[in-house]
Structures are given as C-alpha cells and as structure tokens.
C-alpha cells in the first residue's frame, strides 16, 4: 500500500509515493533521492540521520514519512546557498571537525537547529545540542569548537 506525501525539502516542494510505515530516512534517500542524509542505526540512537522538520532536529529513521506531509524539511543538501558555504560548514572545515565524514551531515543539522534558535550558545548548550549525535572519529572537541566558532562568525556578521 503506497501513500502519497508532499512536503518541502530545502525550500522545494517534493511529492513522493511511500510505502505504508516507511520512515523519512528511506523516503528521502530511496524515493526522493537526497543521499546527503546518512543512516547509522535505523533505531533512533545515533543521530546520523538528523534532519530539521519545521526547524527542529528530528531523527529521520524513526519519523514516519507520512507524518511529514505539509512540513518543511531541511537536510545538509540545502545548507549551502549556491556556491557559498554555510558558516557552520566553513567552521567545520577550518576546525578539522570531520574525519570519516559519515556523522557530519547529521552533526551539521543538529548544530544548525541550535544556532537558528540561539545564535550565541554557550559550550554547554552546544554539547546538549549534539548530545544525541555519535561521532566515532573526532572525540567531539573539534566539532564543539567549530560550532562555537560558527556562532562567533554569526555575531560578527550581525554586529
């Protein structure tokens, strides 16, 4: 039984037929074709598949695709504006905050949700925001530093 579902993905309207019970991760990767979203556990425990739904960080692997009808979904594919990188992407580069790169898309979206809500977070708030995202390579410190640096870069721009 397939169900039609329509939502906004990175500002573009998309429509797809999904299997009943299909999760958003499969809908994005297998049906819509946004392969920037990665799957790590399909259990809702690693944060790798983090996307933003109406601005809030959500685990795509345990979100029913059907419940996303009419919602606005953001993935790392929409982070970049044309050739320009998002300040978080620039900061991740400058701070060497990625090694294997597999957790990076989810990490960036978790960080974006934080900075969108709170442009100048404390270190504790950054830690809290990425607390559900597992990185096996970096030991987290470079990621925390990158997110804090991106927030400072935002401060400079708005000042």
């Amino acid at each position, binding site marked *: 039984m397939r169900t039609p579902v329509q939502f906004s993905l990175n500002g573009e309207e998309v429509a797809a037929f999904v299997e009943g019970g299909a999760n958003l991760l499969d809908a994005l990767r297998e049906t819509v074709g946004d392969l920037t979203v990665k799957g790590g*556990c399909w*259990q809702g*425990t*690693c944060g790798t598949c983090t996307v933003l739904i109406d601005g809030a960080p959500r685990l795509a692997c345990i979100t029913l695709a059907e419940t996303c009808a009419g919602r606005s979904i953001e993935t790392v594919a929409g982070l970049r504006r044309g050739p320009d990188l998002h300040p978080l992407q620039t900061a991740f580069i400058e701070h*060497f905050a990625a*090694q*294997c*790169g*597999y957790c990076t898309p989810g990490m960036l979206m978790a960080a974006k949700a934080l900075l969108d809500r709170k442009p100048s977070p404390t270190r*504790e708030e*950054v*830690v*809290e925001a*990425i*607390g559900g995202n*597992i990185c*096996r*390579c*970096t*030991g*987290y*410190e*470079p*990621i*925390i530093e990158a997110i804090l640096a991106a927030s400072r870069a935002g401060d400079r721009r708005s000042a």
Partner: protein
Amino acid sequence: MAKHRGRGVAAINYPIGMNLGGDPSQALVHSNPSGKFTVALSSIDLGQGMKSVTRQICAETLGVPIEDVYVDTADSDTGPHCMGSFASRGTHRVGNAVMAAAREARAVMMEAAAEELEVDAGDLETDGRGNIRVKGAPQKSISVKDVAVAAQFRQGKTISGRGIFLVPLSDVDPETGEMSPATCYAHACLIAEVEVDDETGEVAVLKMTSAYELGRALNPKLVEQQLVGGAWMGMSHALYETPEPYYPDTRNGPRDFNEYLMPGPGDICPHDITVLERPAPDGPFGAKGPGEMCANPVLPAIANAIFNAVGVRVNELPITPEKVLRALKAKNGAPASRFR
C-alpha cells in the same frame, strides 16, 4: 561518601605496519597534459586522511604545489594493489609507495624539462610553485605545465611513475620467537587525572596530558585529529565499551547505542598534547603512523589513576562503576585521596 582525585601514568610503544612485514602497497602517479598529477591507489580513506597525506607526500616529492595533485583511492580497476588500511600501515607503507612513484615521475619530468631548456637534468630543480629552473640561474626556467605539454606532444614521453613499498616478510623462530616484527615504532606517555565517586563508583576523567612521538608529522592537523579522537576512544574503551559486559558470560549484550555506551560530547575532558618527532629512517620523510597507538596509553593510565585516587586495582576492562564499587567494597571503602 566522597569524590577522590588521582592521577596515573602509562607509557607505550607501537609497531608500525603489519607485524612481520610482507604487506606491500603500490602507487601510480601520472600527469595530465597541463601538468596536473593524479595518484592512483587502491588504498582506503576511512577517515584517517589517506587521501590527504599521500597528496602531500606526492607534491613534496614531485616538487609541485599541493593543488596540482589529486589522489584517487580505492578502485581495483585503476589503483594498483594495496594490502589495506590497518595496522598503522597507511602513512608508512602507502606513503613510501607514493614517494617512489613520484620520484620516478619526477625524473621523467626533469628530463623533459632539460630537453626543453637544453641543459643537463642534474642542473635543474623545482621551485615548489609549479616551475622548474636551473640551479643558480633561476631566470632560466620553465613551468611544469609547459614541460607536460612538451613531454606529451613533442617528446613523446609519459610523465608517470610506479612505486611499491614492501618490508620483506620476516621469519619467526618457533622455539624462541625471534623475529622482525616492525621496522619502526611510535611512542607515547600519557597522564590521566580522574575523579572517582566512592558512592556510585563512577569515574570521571578530568584531564589528560600526553606526549606522543610519531616520527615526522606530515600534517600537524591530521595528527591532531588522530590523537584527540584516538585518546577519546581509549578513554571510551577504559570506562565504557563492551558488547559483553559480563564476559565470558555472553548475556546482556547491547543491541543499540542506548545500551552500547561511549562518552558523549559532555563526557570529554581537556587533553594537553605534545608531539615529538624522531624521524623513522625508513618512513616517508621520516613518518611513522599515529592512528592506533594514540588510544593505547589511555586505558592503563586511567586504571592507574583510579588506584591513585581510591586505592583499588581493577584489572578487568571496561572499568564500570559496578567493578569500582565491588573493588571498594572488597577493601572497605575509599581512603583519603592520595593525589600526587
């Protein structure tokens, strides 16, 4: 009921490359007509930076800017054989293979340049910015791009090179264990500072201070990535991780990341790292390999710090709160802190 601080030390060395050798890696390097180079490997980048570090080795050896080199990894139709990315062998073995291939390509490039400049190849040098010039007469020079065009369209030369690196397989004496396990070793000493809660048995790592010697650090930022992330993994192994928490009993195994525990971003501690570089005589530009050894000293340093804090030895990993509490109970509570 109190929290006790302590610190402990551990020192280690680590063999670079597959034990006993016998683990070859190959590389191919070639130039396109505009003097840009491709390195073809079948080696894997699983986050450690294989693509990046071999790119630097190739650029340095060829004498061209890093931007003019691209590393293509892991296609069995185009990349020659490599044993694999494990045993801290990538930088050392693959790096040497890339260096050998780049040397061969460089020799052709210099010959082609010599022919264009009508000088002896031995009188030429690269400037590292994409030009080849006569030693002592830098005004007499030619760009690598022009050399590549000339080599391919006029001279009929291929600016390319092949490289292999092999540490010959060592025999092992079955009776004594006499063998050549490795040609070089990395080293480390790490001091961990912990706080042990004698009520809950929980151990918090407050700080790590370390000195790692890893041969020439080909890229200080990639080295930092390995050391910071690797020490985190060591701390995770020491205190958190196992799929069989009551080994050898096989029950209670975790099935997801809610049950398989690792320190999260809120559990990490400052890590003050110092890097020493004693070049390995057979390493590419003296490099060894930091990938695996960085985790190893953390486990015993934490165990020793726990002893320093509360006077109990936990000889079984991971050192869970349950094991700490059982050890404390066996010795009737925690003593006053013995922080050095």
